[in-house]
């Protein structure tokens, strides 16, 4: 069995704001196999985005604080990588698509410049892989290259294309090649007329276009793991459908490993191989997508599936989960879901229950069906 691309183990993250301490993530474990798409579902404020940003270490250090856990990416624990080496993990290693296409492109640079930057960094690292050998010692094979020199990590602020030793002709050729590649990636995300689009600024593009550019930018680094943090939530419904279709097609074309974060169950149902359901910073259920949809074992998952408007029937009101999401600084004792749980018993308020236990009948494996509720047998499958 091959090693997974990403293995998050027992990750806990707090936000320390003023006197308060918010438990954004509690003991979360996620595993992304090579070529798989893993969906993370949950309500607003359940810690999905914190998880997405914690993996490439994007969380700002005050207020965020990683309490415990490990983030193993291609075998390296990212939490132990020193801050100045983090750029070597990002881009070619982990790429990311953000929620707000309005804010995720730099307003001051043309589309061509922003994508060329990503391509340029990948080329530098690929060139490094060909000429430089690893200095040995620590395993530093984050993605596709050996160790990157400090000067490279410090950067190449303004150059697009090549090292100082290059001749002018080579530079021009490189620049042309990079531009060709930019156009190629814009075509990959089905942008019509990429020759015009590359020369535009982000504010001259529509929301859907910007999100396509964002996807092209993330893909152009050819990351081994792509994290998509609610890539369609900020778009209107028709554009959402287009972008989702695009992403579904791209999953087959580029064969990427993807961690897909969303609040939309319908989205994960179509894209993911495995899904994890999050509630109040806890992962409450994890397993193959079909099994979770057909036999949800956690009362929260069942309620979430019930509340999905696509299951709306003409004869009744929309179903919803009573109560509201708990305040993350004052989580209820015991199971975080028990105040809203239809099958809760008195002991649920004291005993936090198991953290993800294998569902009986499921074969034991890294991505088999697990649930964090001891009374899972009482959870009814949705009709």
């Amino acid at each position: 069995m091959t090693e997974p691309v990403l293995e998050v183990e027992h990750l806990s993250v707090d936000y320390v704001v003023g006197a308060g301490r918010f438990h954004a993530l509690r003991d979360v474990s996620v595993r992304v196999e090579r070529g798989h798409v893993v969906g993370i579902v949950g309500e607003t404020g359940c810690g999905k985005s914190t998880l997405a940003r914690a993996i490439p270490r994007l969380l700002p250090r005050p207020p965020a604080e990683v309490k415990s856990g490990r983030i193993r990416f291609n075998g390296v624990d990212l939490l132990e990588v020193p801050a100045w080496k983090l750029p070597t993990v990002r881009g070619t290693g982990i790429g990311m698509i953000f929620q707000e296409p309005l804010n995720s492109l730099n307003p001051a640079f043309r589309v061509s410049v922003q994508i060329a930057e990503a391509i340029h960094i990948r080329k530098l690292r690929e060139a490094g892989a060909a000429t430089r050998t690893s200095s040995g010692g620590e395993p530093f094979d984050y993605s596709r290259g050996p160790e990157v020199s400090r000067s490279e990590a410090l950067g190449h602020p303004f150059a697009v294309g090549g090292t100082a030793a290059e001749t002018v002709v080579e530079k021009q050729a490189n620049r042309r090649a990079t531009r060709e590649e930019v156009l190629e990636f814009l075509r990959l995300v089905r942008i019509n007329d990429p020759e015009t689009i590359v020369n535009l600024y982000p504010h001259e593009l529509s929301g859907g276009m910007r999100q396509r550019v964002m996807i092209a930018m993330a893909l152009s680094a050819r990351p081994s793991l792509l994290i998509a943090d609610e890539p369609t939530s900020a778009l209107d419904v028709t554009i959402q459908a287009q972008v989702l279709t695009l992403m579904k097609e791209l999953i087959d074309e580029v064969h990427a490993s993807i961690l897909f974060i969303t609040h939309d169950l319908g989205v994960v149902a179509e894209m993911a191989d495995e899904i994890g359901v999050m509630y109040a910073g806890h992962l409450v259920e994890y397993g193959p997508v079909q099994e979770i949809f057909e036999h949800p074992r956690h009362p929260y998952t069942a309620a979430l599936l019930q509340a999905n408007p696509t299951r709306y029937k003409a004869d009744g009101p929309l179903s919803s989960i009573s109560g509201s999401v708990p305040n993350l600084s004052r989580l209820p004792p015991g199971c975080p879901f028990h105040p809203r749980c239809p099958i809760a018993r008195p002991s649920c308020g004291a005993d936090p229950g198991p953290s993800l236990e294998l569902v009986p009948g499921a074969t034991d494996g890294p991505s088999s069906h697990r649930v964090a509720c001891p009374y899972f047998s009482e959870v009814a499958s949705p009709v």
Partner: protein
Amino acid sequence: MGRSLFDLAIFIGKRLLYLIPVLFGVVVITFFFTHLAVSDPCSIWFPRSKPATLAACRITFGLNQPLWVQFWDYLSNLLSGNWGTSPQGVPVYSTIATALPATVELVLASLVLMIFIGIPLGVVAASAAGRWGDHLVRIFYLSGWATPTYLGAIVAAILVAPALGLPTSGEYNSFTPPFPQVTHMSVVDALLAGNLPWASDAMLHLIMPATVLAFINMGIATRMTRSSMLEVLPLDYINSARMKGLSEFVVLYKHALRNSLISTTTVLGVTAGGLLSGTIVVEEVFAWPGIGSYAFNAITGYNFAGVIAIVVVFAIGVVVGNLIADILYGILDPRVEWR
């Protein structure tokens, strides 16, 4: 309206047209202030003179005529290029033509220091917000901000400059450089003449006054950069730049600073325009033959024509500083259209 060069030209033309009412107002106000404040300037210019001499003086300078006639004469002379003379008969225009470039040189030099020291300090402060780096930067720029110009200039001249072995007086070591003064900017003239020893001498003379000006006025650039960096840094495009694998240096100084510079530029343009009139004390202390020294002498010598011309030049400085800031603003921010 758009972003073509044609739009830019129209934009600049319009802004220069605004100069006309501004300058007219400035001339009216300074003219009447100076002439109403002093009832008989001739007796101040030439004290202990015979009444006949004073009467002759009044006729020469037209002071025996009604005020509005005097104003009309002054204005028509100004429009025909005659800026008047000092009481001693020195033409105002030629004095300003030699003094203004010296001040512009001083202001540009301190602007360079403010840009290349003040702005990076702002970036450092923002990226270390709330930590010791931020506090150190704040102590530095606040101490500059809080320093009175006369004190800073004098301390620099009598304590700092001797310690560093830097000259503290004038533009060159000698008053008579062996080359023509084409631009009246000391370094530029020496370089135009290809005289490197004199050019380096001129630069050494420029260091102290420019540093004092920059130190005192740098805070605004640092503070502005810091606060707009803090607005930009939490935005998603900074994270998406990080997620390309760019180093923190490139993320800060290319992606974040480029967007923060927009407000810093505006402030710096206004500051630079205002600095023209802010050099008076520094020029006096460092014997810099600029417009500040001239302003000081014109005011203390009741040189009305000189005072009005200087105020007009300062007003032009502020307007042009603003105009340049607006142009840079449009260049830095692709969303701006010239209007």
